[in-house]
Structures are given as structure tokens and as C-alpha cells.
């Protein structure tokens, strides 16, 4: 009984079921099974490396700035949670997918949420915040249904804007920065002039390599950190005396942990999403899909770049404000500033042109630099002192919404959850 509910077994069952329904050959099913298990364990190894590297980064940060650091990174925190809560994470994810398909089949909310990696991260967060409840399976079921409803409804917030960009509403984006974006769009409504920019001019110098961007930002951070602590302290905790070497070593290691986790997520969710899409296409006659926000980037590449830089600027300014006010300090999550800041800029541009793009992405950058501070206390009892958090804006709101619903349900049912 216990074997059936192990996380590895659950993902295999899901993948095999989906492939079976699509009448795939036996050798395809076997190789997909092996791939999904390999992906699962690559995530485990990546997250172990992340835990070790983050430990050293936090030590040096706290010594240098006398403040607690939060380095938000969806992949890192989700995989660290999965080390300890793997069964809950996978169960919630599978229930959410079933609920999503059911809602798409039976209601007017027809988007099938294909950004399975985001679903994995949301499920990881839910696994942690439902942990203190009474009946384990009941709370997993409620969490799964909640997540399924959320991912069915979320794409509709932006589907209006996206359908204007793409010309149809069969495909929309599965985006997790809606709260920050709509706050920014609201504030950008004060713009009177609607100035457009030329999106045909291509910039050829900015290579969108996330690993390189992450390394450069961590390296910069490390150079600053190591220059602010004395060499003996560094030696005590890293056994190295050279500051530049420490900076390179730990930035590369953090980048490698990210790379491994992404590789594992890609392998695991790649097999899962194939099965998922196969099941959805068989069951839902006129389904539409919600996919990665980056699909709309090619329409407005210069807006994306502006969104990235302005969002990052919002993050850097927030960083210094937090230092000055002696709060917990959020290190700018460059990859989220790029992907979600870029998306925020495109949505803002859609409404209020260049002024909208700039204000929306700046607000986005500031919001994702403060929301993790509010989200940490909700997660902390369960993940201890790991100094990372979810980096997209909507994670906080999803967690808060669930807490409210949990309280309402427990009042209504009189059952301790």
C-alpha cells in the first residue's frame, strides 16, 4: 500500500496511463518511464547541491550585511520542498491536473494548463502549507482541488490581452505574475500620452541564456559579499582564502544546481505533459491551452528587454531600501525579472503603450522583491532556515487565498483541517 503512494510510483502511473490512452508502443512507454524517474532524481541531486550552496551564501550574506537574505528562485525552493514532501507534491499535482481537465470539459473555462513546471512549483508550496492539518488525505484532496481550480481560472485574467496580441484565443499564457502586473497596469492608467516604439528593430546582442544571466548576477553578488567579510571568516566556512575563487566557485555551484534542477524538471514534466495533453485531447473536444508566457515574446522583443531592465531596476532599488530599513533583504531574482517582468511589460504595453510597459514592469519588480518577505513566514515552519522562496508574485496570493478558504471550510464543516 505504501509503495503505491510513493511519489515515484505515482508519476510513473500517470505517465504510463497517459501513454497507454494514446496507444503508444511498449518500448516508448518503457523509455518514458525511465526518463521520468531519471528526471525525478536529477531534481533531488540538484536540490541537494542547492541546499549546500545556499547555506554558505546565507552565512556570508548575514555576516556582510547583518541582515537575513532571501534569494527567491522557484526551481530551488520547489525542489528542496520535494526532498521532504515528495508524496504530497505529486499527489496534489495529479489531483490538480484531473480537476483542470474536468473543469475544461464541463465549464466555459476551457484552458488546459500546460505549464506543468509551474504546476509543480504551486503544488510544492501547497504541500508545505497544508502540512499542519489533521486528516492527511483529506487536506491533500482539498489542496489538489484548490490548485486545479486556480490553474483553470488563472489564464483567463490575461487571455483578453493575449488574444489581442496573437489574434486568437486558442492559446493563452499560464502566467504567475498577474497580481503585480495588474497593479502596475492600474497605476499606469494615469499615463495620458500613448507612445509606441518600434518592435521591428531587432537587438542582436542580448543572448537569452538563463544560466549565464544567473551566474553573472550571483557572481556580482558574491564579489560584493566576499569583499565585505574578512578572509579568516571566509576560510573558516569555505576552506579557501582567495575571495575571487570563492566567488567563482559558489556562483558556479549555484548555477549548476539550478541547471540540474531545470534539467530534471524538464525531463520529468516533459513526460508528464505529453501524457497530460494526450488525455486532455481525448476527453475535451474543443480545448484551448495555456502555455509558457515566452511564446508572446517574439512579437515584442524590445518591450521584453525594457521590461527586464526596468523590473530588475525595481528589484535593485527595493534591495537597497530593505537594507536601509533593516528588513529581510530580497536578492533580485534575475530570471523572474526577465520572464515575468518581460511579460508584465508586454501586458502593460498592450494597455498603455511605452508608459504602461515601464510603469507596469517597475511595479512588478518592486512587488516581487517584497512579496517573498510576506510569504516566508507562511513557509518557514516547514522548511526551516533555507533562505530561498518562490519568486513569482502570485504565489503569495495563492497561499493567502488558501489560508482564508481553509479557515472558512473549517468553520463551516466544524472539522479540524
Amino acid at each position, binding site marked *: 500500500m505504501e509503495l503505491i503512494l510513493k511519489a515515484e510510483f505515482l508519476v510513473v502511473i500517470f505517465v504510463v496511463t497517459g501513454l497507454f490512452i494514446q496507444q503508444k508502443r511498449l518500448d516508448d512507454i518503457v523509455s518514458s518511464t525511465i526518463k521520468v524517474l531519471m528526471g525525478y532524481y536529477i531534481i533531488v541531486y540538484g536540490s541537494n547541491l542547492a541546499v549546500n550552496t545556499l547555506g554558505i551564501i546565507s552565512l556570508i550574506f548575514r555576516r556582510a550585511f547583518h541582515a537575513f537574505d532571501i534569494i527567491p528562485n522557484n526551481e530551488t525552493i520547489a525542489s528542496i520542498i520535494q526532498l521532504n514532501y515528495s508524496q504530497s507534491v505529486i499527489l496534489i499535482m495529479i489531483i490538480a491536473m484531473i480537476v483542470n481537465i474536468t473543469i475544461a470539459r464541463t465549464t466555459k473555462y476551457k484552458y488546459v494548463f500546460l505549464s506543468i513546471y509551474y504546476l509543480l512549483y504551486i503544488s510544492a508550496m501547497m504541500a508545505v502549507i497544508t502540512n499542519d492539518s489533521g486528516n492527511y488525505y483529506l487536506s491533500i484532496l482539498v489542496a489538489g482541488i484548490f490548485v486545479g481550480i486556480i490553474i483553470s481560472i488563472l489564464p483567463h485574467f490575461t487571455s483578453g490581452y493575449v488574444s489581442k496580441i496573437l489574434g486568437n484565443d486558442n492559446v493563452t499564457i499560464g502566467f504567475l505574475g498577474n497580481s503585480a502586473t495588474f497593479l502596475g497596469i492600474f497605476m499606469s492608467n494615469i499615463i495620458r500620452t500613448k507612445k509606441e516604439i518600434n518592435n521591428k528593430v531587432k537587438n542582436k546582442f542580448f543572448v537569452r541564456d538563463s544560466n549565464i544571466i544567473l551566474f553573472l548576477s550571483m557572481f556580482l553578488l558574491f564579489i560584493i559579499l566576499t569583499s565585505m567579510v574578512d578572509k579568516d571568516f571566509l576560510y573558516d566556512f569555505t576552506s579557501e582564502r582567495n575571495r575571487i575563487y570563492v566567488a567563482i566557485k559558489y556562483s558556479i555551484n549555484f548555477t549548476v544546481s539550478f541547471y540540474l534542477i531545470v534539467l530534471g524538471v524538464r525531463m520529468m514534466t*516533459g513526460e508528464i505533459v505529453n501524457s497530460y495533453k494526450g488525455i486532455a485531447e481525448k476527453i475535451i473536444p474543443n480545448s484551448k491551452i495555456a*502555455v*509558457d508566457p*515566452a511564446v508572446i*515574446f517574439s512579437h515584442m522583443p524590445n518591450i521584453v528587454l525594457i521590461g527586464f531592465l526596468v523590473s530588475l531596476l525595481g528589484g535593485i532599488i527595493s534591495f537597497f531600501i530593505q537594507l536601509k530599513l533593516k528588513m529581510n533583504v530580497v536578492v533580485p531574482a534575475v530570471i523572474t525579472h526577465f520572464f515575468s517582468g518581460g511579460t508584465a511589460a508586454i501586458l502593460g504595453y498592450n494597455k498603455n503603450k511605452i508608459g504602461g510597459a515601464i510603469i507596469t514592469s517597475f511595479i512588478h519588480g518592486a512587488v516581487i522583491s517584497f512579496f517573498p518577505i510576506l510569504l516566508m513566514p507562511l513557509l518557514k515552519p516547514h522548511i526551516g532556515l533555507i533562505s530561498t522562496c518562490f519568486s513569482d508574485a502570485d504565489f503569495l496570493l495563492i497561499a493567502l487565498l488558501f489560508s482564508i478558504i481553509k479557515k472558512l471550510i473549517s468553520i463551516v464543516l466544524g472539522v479540524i483541517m
Partner: protein
Amino acid sequence: MIRAVVLCSLGLGSSYIIETNLKNILNQYKLDAQVIRTDITSAECYDADFYVCSEDINFRPTKQITLIQLEDLLDFEELHEKVKKFVLEKV
């Protein structure tokens, strides 16, 4: 056996659309194909007959490869045209 590599920034999101469309097209031509999805960092570690990515990620290959760049990831016809050109040349 044709090997294709599909890539995007992280290999997670937008390349999934390209992969789905590409597999569709290669099935149409009844070609035995292996499609690998990866990120831009490790794309060239995989040897392939051709590579597909979106134009705006500014992928700059360091060696001589056949690269199909798409202006619009969601445009099935664009991918179809460019792959057809490649397939007719090679096969």
C-alpha cells in the same frame, strides 16, 4: 533517422510548442525522427541534423549547424515551410 534539437531559454516552456508542432510535421512526412528539447546553454552539446529555436533568443551557435529560426513560435505554417525546405534538401 533524423535528429532535431529544439531549444529555448530554459528548455521548459516555449520549446514545448515547437516540439509538438515539429513532431506533428515530421509525422506528416513519415520520417523516423528523434526530437530533443534542451536549453540554449547545452544545445550544441547535442549533435543533430537541424536545430530549431525562436528568433528572439539570439542563439549564436559556435559551430556550423543548420539552424531554423522562427519569428512566431505559434505559427505552424512557418515551421512547416522551413522544415519542408530542409527535408527536401536532405532527403
